[in-house]
């Protein structure tokens, strides 16, 4: 008679249908999104350094943001872009934005600018309080190849981008009188889901000495620590957690500057969901390993 003994609990648990795992992940991600629990992020040194650097930039220096990510990593990186724009407008610095590496980033920049300018303009009482295209910010758009952009911007930005994203001649924009090349920029922050920040180091920083910062996905953050440590990046926002930490610092700054508007902080909102997902994966690893050791001992 054939052996029809049912496998024990641990063996069955190891061979569990992966759809159960998917279901658990779905639940632990969705429930905290709907019923979030409060997490107060504490800024890590790379985030604090980037925030401090931008916050204390001289008045005549602008921030340049290179959007080097596409919609697939938008959920993780868009809160960084939003926070950087809010910060710049809060401290009344000028900002130039470009879709650095990918043409797909164009819509991301447009979406972020619409949101943040609407937030600031809805609270503006005077023209000086408003955030205006061409005066307070410029959206250069995208051009190719990337080597032309990174090296060319060090000489004359208007030559690399003769017209902005909306088709206006860049030379005719008032902001461009104060933003001719990297010398007029306090720092360039590359928000990236790939290895593009490395190109900014190799081409823009090595040639022109511009200060750099980066915002990156959590999964690639480990790659950038050598550059943070060497000082090539003034600071770094690593993943959703980095965005949440920056949002926390920014909120304190906005309150201090009389801009206590209670704006949505999507990075911080998603932290509870991310924390729950991390805990679920830790639990999976523990259960998987317990099952593995028990099964191995029984076989021996």
């Amino acid at each position, binding site marked *: 008679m054939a052996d029809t003994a049912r496998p024990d609990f641990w063996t069955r648990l190891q061979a569990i249908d992966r759809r159960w795992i998917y279901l658990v992940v779905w639940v632990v991600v969705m429930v905290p999104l709907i019923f979030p629990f409060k997490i107060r992020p504490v800024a890590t040194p790379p985030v604090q350094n980037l925030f401090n650097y931008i916050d204390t930039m001289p008045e005549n220096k602008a921030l340049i943001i290179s959007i080097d990510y596409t919609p697939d990593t938008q*959920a993780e990186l868009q809160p960084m872009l939003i926070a950087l724009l809010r910060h710049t407008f809060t401290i009344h610095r000028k900002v130039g934005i470009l879709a650095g590496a990918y043409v797909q980033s164009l819509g991301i920049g447009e979406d972020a600018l619409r949101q943040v300018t609407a937030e600031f303009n809805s609270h503006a009482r005077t023209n000086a309080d408003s955030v205006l295209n061409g005066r307070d910010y410029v959206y250069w758009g995208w051009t190719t190849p990337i080597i032309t952009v990174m090296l060319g911007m060090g000489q004359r930005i208007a030559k690399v981008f003769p017209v902005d994203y909306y088709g206006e001649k860049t030379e005719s924009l008032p902001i461009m009188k104060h933003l001719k090349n990297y010398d007029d920029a306090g720092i360039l922050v590359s928000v990236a889901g790939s290895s593009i920040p490395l190109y900014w180091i190799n081409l823009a920083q090595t040639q022109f000495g511009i200060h750099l910062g980066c915002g990156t996905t959590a999964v690639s953050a480990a790659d950038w*620590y050598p550059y943070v440590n060497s000082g090539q990046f003034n600071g770094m926002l690593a993943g959703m957690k980095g965005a949440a930490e920056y949002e926390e610092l920014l909120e304190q700054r906005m309150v201090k500057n009389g801009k206590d508007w209670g704006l949505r902080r999507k990075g911080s909102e998603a932290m509870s969901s991310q924390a729950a997902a991390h805990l679920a994966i830790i639990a999976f690893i523990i259960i998987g390993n317990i099952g593995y050791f028990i099964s191995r001992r029984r076989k021996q």
Partner: protein
Amino acid sequence: MQRRLPLLLVLVTGIFAALPFFIPHHSLQAVDETVRNDVLRIIAAFSLVLGVGSILQHHFTKIQRKTSNWQYSWITVVTLFVSAVIGLFGGIDPSHPGILPTHIGHFSFHIQTLYMNIMVPLAATMFSLLAFFMASAAYRAFRARNLSATVLLAAAFILMLGSVPLGRMIFHPLPSFAEWILTVPNMAAKRGINFGIQLGILATSLKILLGIERGWLGGG
């Protein structure tokens, strides 16, 4: 000649591309600027034509031969043309209109609407599937089978716990310890790997420039 000309072109352009980084003479810098701003852009424009031509050829061949899932090729071709026409002639949105009308009544189909309602959800959905696969892989494959795997497991454990509030509640210095793992052992390993990669790139580049490595010419 068929092989010598491309090799010569690579040698000359490769050396010329590197020289401006070492020689700051204004005449060389001026030529370099022209090459970067004009010549490279023209080449990039040609590559766009090549790319669109290639994708169209691939999908029309699939449609013609009715290979598996050939119907989806129509979707690619139609999407390519529709988004290109709207992007080129439809403006960005109602506040920046183009020459092509991109709304019917209140229904708008300008490029930003298409982008936010089609491109963004599709790309985000594809990427978010990773979380499910990672969780499943962590459950099935992340085992402390030997010393190396155990060290990896312990490091991952500390990093994951260190990045959630529970980690700080369990052991207050845990987030700092997680940060230390990233900034010291991880960084040391990454630096070593980076040095290796960069030396490899340098060696391979020199081999290509000098015509020792000819794999890029094709023909096996």
